């Protein structure tokens, strides 16, 4: 049985429930055991690294330490921000100028032996392992724009599972659903999530560009792997919708798309919780689901 440590982080227990929900559903279906880190704490993504460098490093390390005590050797951090903080912290640990001073307590064990992976790497792996092979629904003809956002691929000296400027790993993964990834230009542009509340105007402008380009390259849906991107692109799209004749585009988590292809229903995956409804896009595939189930 494939077992992996699991660090949900705050988003997946709140604004991005459906991300968590869909992930767990898939894992149940494929017999993957998620071992949640006991008593996990904040990863410090939001403001720690803006306010206190030491804090921003020690918070994630604390989580890794807990995982280590639990005997976890690999952690899945679906949230792009969490992932980013965790790997960055491990990177900092290798810089002995910091180590020498404050972080010495994290040296007693080899915490960098624990591998932290994001949702994309996770799928890459279970595909390689042959765990993710039973596809039930073919999403043939579905045009998908894969959106990576800013956190998943940067900074490149720390994260290098994919080219940070011309990424293609998500495309590779969704191919197993038979859906067609579209080649477009805004894969990694900033969606402005951090301004989502304070400066709506900027955000709306930014996601307008992103969604616009995706549609220009005739995408039916956009697949994301980051809770912030999702809430931002999903929720703020309502603003765009106010414009005359705006055709909205559903924002789907990578996990949800995979889930669908595995025959899970939108409700099971929590797709129905999104602001931008997507049933219209998927209808034709569901019918098939009934047939095959």
């Amino acid at each position: 049985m494939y077992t992996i440590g699991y660090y949900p982080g705050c988003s997946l227990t709140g604004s991005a429930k459906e991300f968590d929900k869909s992930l767990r559903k898939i894992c149940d279906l494929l017999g993957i055991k998620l071992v949640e880190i006991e008593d996990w704490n904040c990863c410090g993504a939001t403001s720690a690294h803006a306010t206190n460098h030491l804090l921003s490093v020690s918070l994630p390390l604390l989580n890794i330490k807990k995982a280590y005590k639990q005997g976890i050797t690999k952690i899945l951090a679906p949230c792009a921000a969490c992932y980013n903080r965790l790997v960055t912290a491990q990177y900092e640990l290798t810089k002995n100028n910091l180590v020498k001073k404050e972080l010495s307590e994290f040296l007693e064990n080899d915490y960098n032996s624990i591998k932290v992976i994001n949702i994309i790497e996770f799928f890459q792996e279970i595909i390689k392992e042959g765990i993710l092979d039973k596809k039930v629904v073919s999403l043939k003809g579905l045009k998908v724009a894969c959106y990576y956002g800013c956190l998943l691929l940067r900074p490149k000296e720390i994260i290098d599972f994919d080219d940070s400027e011309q990424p293609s790993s998500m495309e590779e993964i969704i191919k197993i659903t038979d859906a067609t990834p579209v080649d477009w230009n805004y894969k990694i542009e900033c969606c402005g999530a951090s301004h989502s509340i304070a400066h709506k105007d900027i955000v709306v402008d930014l996601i307008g560009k992103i969604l616009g380009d995706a549609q220009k390259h005739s995408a039916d849906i956009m697949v994301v792997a980051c809770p912030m991107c999702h809430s931002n692109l999903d929720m703020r799209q309502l603003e765009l919708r106010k414009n005359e004749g705006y055709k909205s585009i559903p924002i789907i988590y990578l996990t949800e798309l995979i889930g669908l292809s595995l025959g899970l229903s939108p409700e099971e995956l929590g797709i129905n919780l999104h602001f931008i409804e997507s049933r219209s896009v998927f209808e034709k595939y569901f019918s098939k689901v009934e047939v095959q189930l």
Partner: protein
Amino acid sequence: MKIGVFVCHCGENIGKTVDCPRAAQESAKIPGVVISVDNKYTCSDPGQNMIKNAIKEYNLDGVVVASCSPHMHEKTFRKAVASVGMNPYMCEIANIREQCSWVHDDVEEATKKAIDLIRIAVEKVKRNFALTPIKVPVTKRALVIGGGISGIQSALDIANAGYEVVLVEKEPSIGGHMSQLSETFPTLDCSQCILTPRMVEVYQHPKIKLLTYSEVEKVEGFIGNFKVTIKKKPRYVDETKCTGCGLCTQKCPIKKAPNEFEQGMIKRTAIYVPFPQAVPNIPVIDNTVCTYFRTGKCQMCVKVCGKEAIDFNQKERFVVEEVGAIIVATGYSLYKIDKKPKDSPIKGYGEYGYGIYPDVIDGLQFERLASASGPTAGEIKRPSDKKEPKKVVFIQCVGSRDESKGFSYCSKICCMYTAKHAMLYKHKVHDGEAYVFYMDIRSGGKMYEEFVRRAIEEDDVKYIRGRVSRIYEDGGKYIVKGEDTIAGIPVEIDADMVVLATAIVAQNDSKKLAQTIGIPYDKYGFLNEVHPKLRPVESSTAGVYLAGACQAPRDIPESVAMASAAASKALVLFGSDMLEREPTIAKVNESTCAGCFYCQKVCAYNAIEKKEIKDRNGNFVKYVAYVNPGLCQGCGTCNATCPSKSVELIGYTDEQIFAEINALATL
């Protein structure tokens, strides 16, 4: 040991604060001292004579002069003692002026210190060796590596001075990057026109032995006595027979190989001459594409060649050249910015889409587009659809001055050639728009700034101060997203073509070459000069000199200047038959050396070699370190590093320093 001590008053300079007579009396008590006197001016003729006479009278083994700094008069006094037959290295200076009388006021203390300093010197000189300078013969013949403008210049200078030169070029033709350029800044005169004559001159020069399509394989020996092994790669064309008629290149059926000289923008044949003015004008067969080498058939070239010059059986050949000096002029290469392999430290500029978008090109490609001899015969056409681009964006500092994605250094020439490119473009496409994204404009140099101003003011090139964040394609246009930091606004330009001023980087094999020759290089692979200010064209290995962009980004005038400087350094060396070197070098005690080779690790001059020790019956016993007297510069780092003190620096042996410290012993 009989030592003489001579304490100098230097008039008042020392005498005022140091009680010289007393110093002399005290020194007389030092074991080994047979005469100890003071006098007013020891450096004066009477002073020197006094020393000479004392040497004769007491037949001294060593002399200590307590006077000014050795940097002042050590040579003087050493000459003096030598004149009466004492070995000059048996004379030591006790520095009681600069480091005693001039820096202290208290006579009592200054005198005590002076006595100590004299004692130190005496103890040292007691343990000095009579040394004679090391003499090494000089082979008056130079090797120049690299046939670009720098190599050509050095070769010609040395050859014209009447010495033989071996010029090695790894490409089939000399000429280097300069031959690819269309025009040169700031004069906009045609690069080919000024370079080609020089290439021909090299080819015809009786003193220059030209080895093209060859690489340096091995370098042995040391200054004045290098033995260089050169690999000649097979051309499959017999240079002695070929007339360069070029028939074979016209008839060759394979026409699909990318043309390197044209930066891959057009194709060439399998048997080819890199470019029309190539020197030597002899074709090469590219055996990776040639049908004969792939299938064993064809031989079209053989059929058409009247001279039977084609020879498919040519093999690599190795020639050994003996030279006294080596000039490295291997030049630079251009930072290729398409997707980088994972392990590469350089992160690349994926966001600029180089290698993905056909009309995003680099500087050299633009040079070829602009060159009358280029693929478009000098008309500016974009590679994708051969249309004339109406809007061209030039981006500077792609890889330069950018630690996160490229290199922290400035490539130096991009500001100038970008201005040149923009100008050339405007001159050729009058209704076109040219934009330049820059960080700063660095145009130091004669007529350089004026040149850039001309581009901006007369040719109306639009300079935008800021970086480009991303380029993406949109309906045949290239959307260049950037920032105008002066206006403080984001800008988007829908360009037809983008030219990237990519960084100048060291040749990809420069490190390998440096290791072969045994000279240091910096973290970028550029070769290191021994002193950045005072010895800019010398490498730390004696007899090896640097010219042009192999040392750092250089433009043509600088490269040529360096080349001539390096040449003159070589000529200085050739000026004498024998090379004199300081005898204060390290020496290994082979019986105690354990062969850990820490000394080798710390030696900056590759002077330490592995030596095999055999017993009487010729059985291998052990490896020990051996110091090459031709290379050792006498820093003594090996001596301090050696755990068992099995390597010692003559003139500063452990015994001497121990004695010096001991001379200060009290409780």
